[in-house]
């Protein structure tokens, strides 16, 4: 296979259809910019979710009057669960003095109680892998049935809401991503089709002197791939520049709000964007060349 030829023809095609090519690169870059922006937001929301997930406390309240051996048995049972990374026993007295400390000078409100109402508890630290709502819910549901357990508590509601929002956002990103891919593929398909069409006469001549279809396809594949890949790279560069400009304005409020820093797309995500653009380019130009051969 003569790559020299393929690149030469590709260069000629590009030069003679330069404006069209640049236009389609521009449009695809714009589409990818939107996609990249959504990915960026999704990524940072994910980070918040993770940060918050890490802070989820699961607390197992013990039934009053649980005996020392029963408690030890329960502790052992809980500790054996794969979700559990660490566990601390808090007696009812400790809980009471902690509460007192928290209330500080208003601790006198507790004076009205003639006995300590707080149950003893096991404070669970979850393994990182299981710090998500589904695992936590499953874990809580099972532990609740253990002997000696009065109640299992975790910050359920707000997390649930946040994760629901996040899930909707992810679906949105997927849908928009799909749309953008379709649109970009269609743009590439059309540009390459125009190039192929404007080259039909010489394609005919090349076939007459013995060129195979797969040989002739290569310059057009190159065209599609170059369009898509350069568009995706341009969009990432623009996104990166915007990021550099706006990062400082966003960093502080973001940190205050979520305790998580913000970050740009990681190299894996960038590679994925560029790679999928390349694939798109191959597909778009292949379809248009194949269509051309049929007529």
């Amino acid at each position, binding site marked *: 296979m003569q790559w020299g*030829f393929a690149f030469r023809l590709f260069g000629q095609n590009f030069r003679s259809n330069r404006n069209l090519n640049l236009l389609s690169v521009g449009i695809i870059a714009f589409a990818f910019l939107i996609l990249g922006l959504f990915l960026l937001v999704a990524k940072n929301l994910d980070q918040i979710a993770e940060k918050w997930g890490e802070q989820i406390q699961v607390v197992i309240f013990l039934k009053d009057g649980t005996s020392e051996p029963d408690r030890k048995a329960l502790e052992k049972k809980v500790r054996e669960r794969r979700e559990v990374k660490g566990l601390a026993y808090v007696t009812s007295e400790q809980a009471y003095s902690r509460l007192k400390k928290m209330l500080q000078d208003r601790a006198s409100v507790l004076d009205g109680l003639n006995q300590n109402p707080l149950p003893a508890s096991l404070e669970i630290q979850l393994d990182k892998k299981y710090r998500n709502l589904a695992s936590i819910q499953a874990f809580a549901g099972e532990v609740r049935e253990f002997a000696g357990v009065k109640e299992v508590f975790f910050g359920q509601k707000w997390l649930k809401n946040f994760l629901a929002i996040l899930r909707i956002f992810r679906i949105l990103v997927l849908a928009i991503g799909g749309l953008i891919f379709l649109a970009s593929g269609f743009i590439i398909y059309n540009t390459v089709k125009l190039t192929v069409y404007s080259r039909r006469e010489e394609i005919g001549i090349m076939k*007459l002197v*013995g060129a195979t279809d797969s040989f002739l396809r290569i310059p057009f594949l190159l065209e599609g791939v170059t369009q898509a890949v350069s568009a995706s790279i341009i969009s990432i560069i623009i996104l990166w520049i915007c990021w550099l400009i706006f990062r400082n304005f966003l960093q502080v409020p973001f940190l205050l709000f979520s305790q998580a820093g913000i970050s740009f797309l990681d190299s894996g995500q960038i590679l994925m964007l560029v790679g999928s653009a390349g694939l798109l380019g191959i597909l778009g130009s292949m379809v248009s060349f194949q269509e051309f051969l049929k007529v």
Partner: protein
Amino acid sequence: MIELYHVAKTYQRDITALSEINVKIRKGEFVYITGPSGAGKTTLLKLLFAAETPSSGQILIGGKNVSRIRPREIPFLRRQLGVVFQDFKLINHWTVFQNVAFVLEILGFPRKDIRRRVLQTLKRVQLNHRVESFPQKLSGGEQQRVAIARALINDPKILLADEPTGNLDPDITQEIMTFFLEINDRGTTILFATHDRSLIQAYPKRVISLKRGSLITDSEESSGGFELGRT
């Protein structure tokens, strides 16, 4: 080498370009195909390099049935043929060099070999001073010689030449004919479509003459000789 049995070609259902053609051409032969304009010469050649398919009949080239060739095999058939097209079929925004070199590029020849062979062949058709020109800047005769160089660059087994001297002056015609006869001597089978009776007289060979799509005479099978080209 080339065999046609009951070959007919009809364009658009009612334009009969060829009918009932039966011809056998042996390896290494030099055959003129002659006849008035519209007789079907170009059509006959087009059937051979599979640019058209016969409406009926069988065509064999080197034992291969071209009338039933699969599309993906066509490029490989064409690589064994050299074709000088009546309308040249040069790519206008490629240089003379690129037009000729393309045939070898398809075949994956090394760049250096390509350069050497292209220059050598262009010299043979007296175009070595026009290597980097573009076809549109060349005269008709010069373009024709580019087409000839492209057809011969890869030492084809069969040369199909459609009026290859139509635009050439007598001196260059003689030079090109000498070139053709030379490669014919080296074993290349040549089919040469022409109106030019003086050419046939100057270089007498087998003559197949067509008229309105029918084969009228074949000098090999009758005693008429090349006189029969006059139809």
